């Protein structure tokens, strides 16, 4: 199975399973792939999600960034990206453009059986928890079970 075949299937599943706000796209100029779309939370706010598909995908974990709003701010008004890797906020190394990287699966838990649909699902959970953080000032980690994955 080639990476392209797998991504084509993943794109179709996103659309068939109610995640049509997200899609997988090919960039012919660079022959690279990205998965992206707009996530809308229960409060109605929109967030742009951008998942770069590494050459090693699906064995290699794909990083998922929030590209808009940028900067994404904490309850105290600080940029989350400045926290870097944070357990309290469930974030990993930010992108060089300042985009926050959501910790959907840690690298030591990732494997090729996990599909992008589940990655976007976790991102949506993260966003709901983020909005709770913005309302209360409590750590985002308090609103999401540690994102350990059983499989």
């Amino acid at each position: 199975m080639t990476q392209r075949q797998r991504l084509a299937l993943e794109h179709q599943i996103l659309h068939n399973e109610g995640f049509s706000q997200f899609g997988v796209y090919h960039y012919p100029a660079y022959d690279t792939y990205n998965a992206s779309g707009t996530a809308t939370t229960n409060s109605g706010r929109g967030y742009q999600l951008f998942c770069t598909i590494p050459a090693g995908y699906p064995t290699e974990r794909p990083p998922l960034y929030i590209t808009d709003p940028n900067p994404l701010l904490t309850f105290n008004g600080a940029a989350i990206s400045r926290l870097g890797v944070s357990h309290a906020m469930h974030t990993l190394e930010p992108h060089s453009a300042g985009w926050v990287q959501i910790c959907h699966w840690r690298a030591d838990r990732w494997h090729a059986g996990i599909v992008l649909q589940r990655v976007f699902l976790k991102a949506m959970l993260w966003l709901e928890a983020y909005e709770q953080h913005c309302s209360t000032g409590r750590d985002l980690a308090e609103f999401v079970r540690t994102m350990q994955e059983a499989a």
Partner: protein
Amino acid sequence: MSNGDQRSMIREAMQAIAQRKPGKSKLVYDKTKRTIVAVSEGISTPQALNITADDADMFGVVTLSSGWLREKWPDLTKAGSFPVDFSSWDDGDALTQLELCIQGSGTHAPATLVFGHQQVQPAMGMVISIVPTDKSTRRPDVFVSPDNIAYRAELTESGEATVGRREVVFADIEPQLDLRRAGILETTILKDRTVLCIGLGTGGAHVAVELAKSGVGHFLLVDRDRLSVGNVVRHPGGISQVGRTKVNVTRDLILEKNPRAKVDVHAADVSFDNRDMIAGLVQQADLVVCGTDNRQSKLLINELCVSANKPAVYGGAFRRAYGGQILRVRPKHSPCQQCFVSALPEEASDVEVSSQDDADAIAYSDRPVAVEPGLSLDVLPIATQLAKLALLELLADKSSTLNVLKRDFDAPWYLWLNRPEPGTQYADMPPLSESRDEMTINRWYGIYFDRDEQCPVCGDFLSGFAAAYGLDPSKLPALPEKD
């Protein structure tokens, strides 16, 4: 009898009791031979000399390489003499030719090798004269030249014959090593086998050295780390190797055991950035031995091995080495590492945290994970079993005494427990002495589980995944494109 012959006989008699040879426990004066000989304790000899075995063990040893001498033989016979250097050990008690040394003592002893009884004036050091002999060619102090003539060596130090103080022996490395393996291992096959060893920590380095002892001829070593002081209590490398890369330390350990082995080293990380390099090494290998501790590297290696259809064995200790496990993967025929992770996620995640790098890999940087390495003696059973399974793979379908183990080691997954670790499912195991059927410590368990036919790495993931969502994989539209 000449003085030289008599000295030689006395030396042999003393060596016989020094080596505790059966029936040689004391020295007596033999009136017929007019020299000292070794006899057994029971023989009545009022003239027995009061020399014990420990007293008799007084000979230094000078070791020359037979292979090197055969190679240089035309030069020696033509030139008459040339210099040879030795590494001096234990205040000169043992002198080992530098060509034999992977790591020298740091103290050199120069010598001149002379063909026959020529008089030479050495610049410095000993003179070793190679002279014909009628002694048995099977003796270690006899060298057989390329023209099939037996020679022995006479040693002169500072102008004096030292035949009584040092013995010159000839080491014919490869035949002597093969002799010890023959009959159990198919040495000819192993010499031609290439093993890629990825991860050279305590377990990985131990496996590599065991395979070298068994006669594997070609190694590809990959590890990015250097040996640290803290490693020394576990790693085969010692304190004098601290600071060196583990690939180079392990290369030298391999060559100490198998000097003819070809060892290629790659001080590199096993990461997706090095994917092409690792893939190239996998292609060269007959077997991959994975001793890395983190899931990403194991899954990367797994993907590359399955893609290249190369067998692989993965070994690792559980946290603080309370036990360990081995997965053997025969692509398309047995479960792969991805099948293992999917089928047994908790078992696949239970790893020893033996270094800060490993801790960082499984932690957020603001919430550190403690480094909790296990003891060497708890890691070595796993490494030893890993080496044995590796040998079985290398000798697969070939005649070998180890073939009888194939039915014993038929399972894909092997589990070993060093102790009933609190907080684990093994905490309440019965004591070893009381259990007959239940799981206990210090036993290997071969465990069967099925290969995932729809594994994303070794199976038909696409069809299975598509079917689960009611899609036809042959009718998927092309991905939308963006600039």
